[in-house]
């Protein structure tokens, strides 16, 4: 499956990029979480967006989504798990692979901070993908660190494979299988020897062979290690180009102000720049 432009992020910046690119007749795939899970969907009032005063966050978002999809943007709900730059761009979401010739990064604020022990034990018990690695943990005790709305589903999947699952998250999850114990905790650390042996959750040790860390989104710098940042945000020029050819960025991921109108403006420019990049190929 192949598109002209793949947009990572379904908030205002990503949707504005989609609208701009559709107006230039490029086909567009937007990959992101459900718009209801956007931080903007929690805003009770957005009163500084020109021309549309007095709307709630969800009302504004729904207008953006409807606009983009009416113009023919396509959507995939899910998390971009890994990205490959090889004859264009390939992105995996779950077990599907999507291909594009240009890429717009608009994931919002994604913290790249890791838990103690996380990087050290990657490949030795730390995993980011239940559908990929679950089978390798059959009949073993695992913990799921649930930081994404769909994390309970992945935990349920691991249980169905025969893993002994404990679910750990700062807030009580919705949709978790009743047979999975839930531990409320926010301060986490991963411990092990040759491989993972336990997850420390607010000081309590939970023995396990695997820790599945399921965040809302993978940080752009984890997807694209060569991506240049400055002060913790993606470095862009006025055309919203990053240091990587064919990769553009817009919205909160490029820094403040963290406002809808700023994200929309940047998304628009990023979408147009992606079109210009494709036209020059």
């Amino acid at each position, binding site marked *: 499956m192949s598109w002209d432009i793949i947009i990572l992020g379904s908030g205002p910046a990503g949707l504005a990029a989609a609208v701009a690119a559709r107006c230039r007749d490029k086909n567009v795939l937007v990959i992101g979480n459900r718009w209801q899970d956007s931080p903007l969907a929690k805003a009770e009032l957005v009163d500084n967006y020109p021309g549309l005063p007095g709307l709630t966050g969800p009302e504004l978002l729904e207008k953006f989504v409807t606009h983009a999809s009416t113009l023919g943007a396509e959507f995939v709900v899910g998390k971009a*798990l*890994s*990205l*490959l*730059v*090889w004859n264009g761009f*390939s992105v*995996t*979401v*779950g*077990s*599907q*692979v999507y291909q594009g010739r240009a890429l717009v990064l608009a994931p919002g604020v994604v913290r790249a901070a890791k838990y103690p022990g996380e990087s050290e034990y*990657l*490949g*030795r*018990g730390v*995993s980011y*993908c239940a*559908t*990929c*690695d679950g*089978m*390798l*943990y059959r009949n073993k005790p695992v913990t799921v660190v649930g930081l994404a709305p769909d994390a309970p589903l992945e935990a349920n999947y691991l249980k169905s494979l025969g893993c002994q699952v404990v679910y750990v998250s700062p807030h009580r999850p919705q949709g978790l299988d009743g047979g999975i114990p839930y531990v409320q905790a926010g301060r986490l650390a991963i411990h092990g020897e*040759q*491989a993972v042996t336990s997850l420390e959750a607010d000081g309590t040790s939970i023995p396990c062979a*695997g820790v599945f860390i399921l965040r809302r989104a993978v940080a752009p710098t984890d997807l694209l*290690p*060569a991506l240049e940042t400055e002060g913790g945000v993606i470095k862009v020029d006025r055309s919203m180009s990053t240091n990587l050819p064919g990769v553009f960025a817009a919205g909160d991921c490029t820094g403040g102000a963290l406002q809808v109108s700023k994200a929309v403006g940047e998304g628009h420019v990023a979408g147009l720049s992606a079109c210009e990049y494709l036209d020059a190929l």
Partner: protein
Amino acid sequence: MIHFNKDTFDNTLAEGKLMMVDFWAEWCGPCQMLGPVIESLAEKYEGKAVIGKVNTDEEGPLAMRYTVMNIPTVIFFKDGKEIDRKVGVMPPDVYIQVLEQNL
């Protein structure tokens, strides 16, 4: 490119050549994505390095022997021993660099 089973894997390992082995499975999206890269490297390095794949579904004991706990995991061998491994999808240059350093 070779699809290894336990016997072909062990025979190749015993020859001591430079090997690059992609541990993968069909249900794994990132593995599907990496597949064409591995195939293209297998062509490029034909005669210089043995590049192949191990399906962890069919060859579970091989994956366990090398404690593969994430897929894709790409493991490099030389003189019958593991010399490096890369977990997850990496930029193609990362694999090329390890191959070039060990030719």
